[in-house]
C-alpha cells in the first residue's frame, strides 16, 4: 500500500510538472489582450499573410492610426502551411481579422461563407478607378468580399536584338502588330525557327502561355454544376501541340534552370549547343523579381540587360496577386474594413507603395522593431488607374525602364491592364487547370491520343470534385 501511495505521489508530481509545461503558454496567449488596454489602449487587429509585403502596409497603417496595433503573422505557403492553418481555424475562436489570399485560392474563399461583405468600400474603388478585374476576383454573386492593392496584368517580353535580326525591327508597336494574336504568334515562331536554323525558340516552355487561353474563355469551367470545356481550351491544346511538334518551344520547365538560363542567354542543349529564347510571358512582378535578376548569368559573363522590350502580346491575361478579405467572425469589423481600405483603396498609400516612399528608414521611424530587409522598392503595379496615370511618367528614368531599352516599364503594363477580365474566375479553376497538365503533356509526347487526354483529365477532376457533374 505504501508503495502504491509512493507511485501515486510520483504520478501527481509528474502531472504537476506537465501542468507547468502548459501554464507558461496560457498567460502568453492572454498577454497581448491583457497588456494592451492598460498600457496604451490600442485596439488589436490580427492580420495573417503568406508574404512579408503587407507588413510594410501594416506599419504605414499604424502611422495614420496610432491607436491601432496591427499584429502581423506571416505563415509560408511552401508546403501548404498557410492554407492548412487558415482552413483549420475556420469556425474556431482563433480566426484572424484580416487575411491575405493568393490568386490560386482567393476565389474559393470569396465563394465560401467565411468572408464578410465589404461592399461599402466599392465607392472608393470607383473613385480611384480600380481595374475591374482586380475587384472582380474578389466578388461572388455580386457581393464584394476582397480587394487588392496591386494589379498583376501580364505582358510579353521579347529580346530586342533578336527581333531586329528576324523581323528587322525592335519597335514595340511594330512587334505588337506582328504578334497581336496567336495565329500571328505561331507564324512568327516559324519565321524565327527558319531564320535561326532552329537555334532560337519562340518561347521557353509551353506552360508560359497556357494561362492566356484560360484567361480568354467565354464560359467558366463549371456551368450549373457541370464541367464545361470552352473552345478556347481546345484552341490552347491545338496551339501547344503545334509548338511542341514544330520545335517552337525549348521544352524547359517554368522555374527550372533551363527557363532561367534563357533569360541571360546561357541556355545550351544537353550536347552543349547554345540556344536562345525570343520571348517570355510574365506579369508585373515577373519583371523585377524574375526577369531582371536572372538577366545576368551567375558567373556574370552573359547579360541581356537593356535588350528587352515589353508589349501586350497576343492575348490579355493576369497572373498572381494578393487579395485582402475580412473574416466574418471578426470583432473589429470597422477597423478591419478600414485596414483594407487603407491598403488597397487609399490614393496616398498606393502612391507611396508604388513610388518607393516606404523605405526601411521610413518604416523604422514608425516602428523601430521593423527588420532591415523590410521596405517596398518603387515599381509595383497598383490597381488604381487614377494612381497609375499620375505616376507612370515618374518611371521614365527608372532602372527597369533602362532594362527595357528605355521603354517605360509602368507604361507597358498600363497598356495591358484595361483589357484583362476575371469575370469567369471560379474557386475550382486552379485545380481543374492543373489536372489538365499531366494528360496534356502525355498527349504532346504522343503516348496518348487527344481523346484519351480528355478522359484522363475528367477522371482527375472527378477525383477532386466528387459533386461535379462530368460527362
Amino acid at each position: 500500500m505504501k508503495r502504491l501511495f509512493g507511485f501515486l505521489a510520483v504520478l501527481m508530481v509528474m502531472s504537476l510538472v506537465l501542468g507547468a509545461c502548459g501554464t507558461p503558454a496560457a498567460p502568453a496567449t492572454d498577454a497581448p489582450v491583457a497588456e494592451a488596454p492598460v498600457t496604451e489602449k490600442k485596439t488589436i487587429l490580427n492580420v495573417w499573410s503568406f508574404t512579408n509585403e503587407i507588413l510594410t502596409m501594416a506599419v504605414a497603417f499604424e502611422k495614420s492610426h496610432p491607436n491601432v496595433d496591427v499584429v502581423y503573422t506571416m505563415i509560408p505557403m511552401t508546403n501548404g502551411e498557410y492554407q492548412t492553418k487558415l482552413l483549420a481555424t475556420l469556425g474556431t475562436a482563433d480566426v484572424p481579422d484580416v487575411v491575405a489570399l493568393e490568386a490560386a485560392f482567393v476565389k474559393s474563399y470569396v465563394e465560401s461563407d467565411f468572408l464578410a461583405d465589404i461592399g461599402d468600400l466599392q465607392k472608393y474603388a470607383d473613385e480611384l478607378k480600380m481595374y475591374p478585374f482586380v475587384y472582380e476576383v474578389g466578388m461572388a454573386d455580386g457581393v464584394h468580399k476582397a480587394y487588392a492593392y496591386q494589379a498583376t496584368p501580364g505582358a510579353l517580353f521579347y529580346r530586342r536584338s533578336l527581333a531586329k535580326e528576324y523581323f528587322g525591327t525592335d519597335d514595340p508597336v511594330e512587334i505588337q502588330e506582328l504578334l497581336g494574336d496567336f495565329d500571328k504568334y505561331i507564324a512568327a515562331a516559324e519565321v524565327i525557327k527558319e531564320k535561326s536554323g532552329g537555334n532560337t525558340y519562340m518561347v521557353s516552355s509551353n506552360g508560359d502561355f497556357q494561362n492566356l487561353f484560360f484567361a480568354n474563355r467565354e464560359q467558366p469551367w463549371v456551368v450549373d454544376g457541370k464541367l464545361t470545356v470552352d473552345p478556347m481550351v481546345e484552341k490552347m491544346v491545338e496551339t501547344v501541340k503545334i509548338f511542341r511538334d514544330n520545335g517552337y518551344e525549348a521544352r524547359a520547365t517554368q522555374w527550372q534552370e533551363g527557363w532561367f538560363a534563357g533569360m541571360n542567354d546561357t541556355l545550351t542543349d544537353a550536347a552543349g549547343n547554345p540556344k536562345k529564347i525570343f520571348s517570355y510571358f510574365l506579369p508585373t512582378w515577373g519583371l523585377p523579381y524574375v526577369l531582371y535578376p536572372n538577366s545576368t548569368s551567375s558567373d556574370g559573363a552573359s547579360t541581356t540587360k537593356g535588350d528587352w522590350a515589353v508589349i501586350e502580346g497576343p492575348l490579355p491575361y493576369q497572373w498572381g496577386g494578393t487579395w485582402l478579405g475580412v473574416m466574418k467572425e471578426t470583432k473589429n469589423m470597422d477597423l478591419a474594413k478600414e485596414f483594407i481600405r487603407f491598403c488597397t483603396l487609399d490614393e496616398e498609400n498606393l502612391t507611396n507603395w508604388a513610388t518607393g516612399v516606404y523605405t526601411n528608414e521610413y518604416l523604422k521611424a514608425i516602428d523601430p522593431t521593423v527588420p532591415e530587409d523590410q521596405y517596398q522598392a518603387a515599381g509595383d503595379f497598383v490597381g488604381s488607374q487614377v494612381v497609375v496615370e499620375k505616376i507612370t511618367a515618374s518611371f521614365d528614368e527608372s532602372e527597369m525602364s533602362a532594362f527595357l531599352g528605355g521603354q517605360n516599364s509602368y507604361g507597358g503594363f498600363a497598356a495591358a491592364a484595361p483589357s484583362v477580365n476575371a469575370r469567369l474566375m471560379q474557386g475550382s479553376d486552379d485545380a481543374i487547370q492543373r489536372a489538365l497538365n499531366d494528360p496534356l503533356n502525355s498527349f504532346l509526347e504522343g503516348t496518348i491520343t487527344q481523346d484519351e487526354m480528355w478522359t484522363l483529365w475528367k477522371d482527375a477532376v472527378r477525383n477532386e470534385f466528387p459533386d461535379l457533374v462530368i460527362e
Partner: protein
Amino acid sequence: MLKLKHHQYGYLFVAPFIIGFLVFGLYPVVNTIVLSFTDRTLMSSSYSYIGLKNFQNLFADSTFTTAIKNTWQLWLMNFIPQMGIAFLLSIWFTNNRLKLRGVGVWRMIFYMPNLMMASAVAALFFSLFSFYGPVNQFLVRSGLLAEAIDFLRKPAIVRGLVVFIQWWMWFGQTTILLMAAMTAISPSLYEAAVVDGAGTIQMFLKITLPLIKPVLIYILVTSLVGGMQMFDIPYLLTDGRGSPGNSILTNTINMYMKFHSSKGHIGAASAVGLVVFVMTSVVALLIFFLLREKHDQSAEADR
C-alpha cells in the same frame, strides 16, 4: 497476493498513456471516422451524413485503385533493398570479429539524409534530372544518350527516383534500429557458438534473427505504415498530383488532393484515410500472425 498487486501496478504504469490518448488523441481519430460518412467540405459550415457514398465513389474510381497499387509498389521496391543494406551494415557494425573502425561516424553519415528537408531533397533531384539538368548533359556529352530525355516525364524513371530517394533517406534509420536490437544480444552467445564451430551465416540465422525478431516486427510494421502513408517525396518531386501519368500518385497524395481541392472535401479525404487504415491494419495483422506463430514455436522448441 503479491501477484494480484502486480496486476494493479500494471494499470498504473499504462494509465498516463491512456489519459494522454483520451485527452489529445481520441477526438481527431473519432472526428476523422465520423467525417468519412459525411459530405463535409471545409469551405462550408453545413454538411450532411451520406452513409457509404464516399466509399462507393472511391471504389468506382480508377484513380483510387491506381493510388493503392502505386503505394504498394513504391513501398516494396524501397523497403526490400533498404532492409538488405541495413542488415548488412548492422551485422558488420556489431560484429566483434571484424572490429570495424569508426562505426559511429559511418552510422552518422548514413543517417544524414534523414535530416534533410524533403522539399529541398525533391528540388535537388528535380534539378538533377530535368530536361536541361546535369544528368542529361553528362549522358549526352559522354555519348551514352543520343539526345536529352525528359526524365521526369518517364513513369519508370520517376518511380525509380522516388524509390531511390526513399531508400536513401531511410536505410540509415533502419540500420540504427537493427543495431540497437543486435547490441542487446550478449557477445557470449556468439563466443559460445564460435567455440561450437558455427559459421557467420549459421550464427545469424540461429542467434541473431530469432533474438531481434520483436524489433524486426516493429521495423516491418512501422515501415509498412510509413510506406502506406508515403507523401512528401512523391508529392514534391513532380507536380504534386503524382505525374507523369499518375505513376507516383500515392494514397496520401490522393487524399491530399481531395482535401486541398478548392472546397476542401474533407469528408471524401477522410474516407480515403479510413480505407488506407483498414488495409494497413489487415496486412499488419498478417505480419504479426505469421511472425508471432513462428516465434512461439521456436521458443517452444528451444525449451
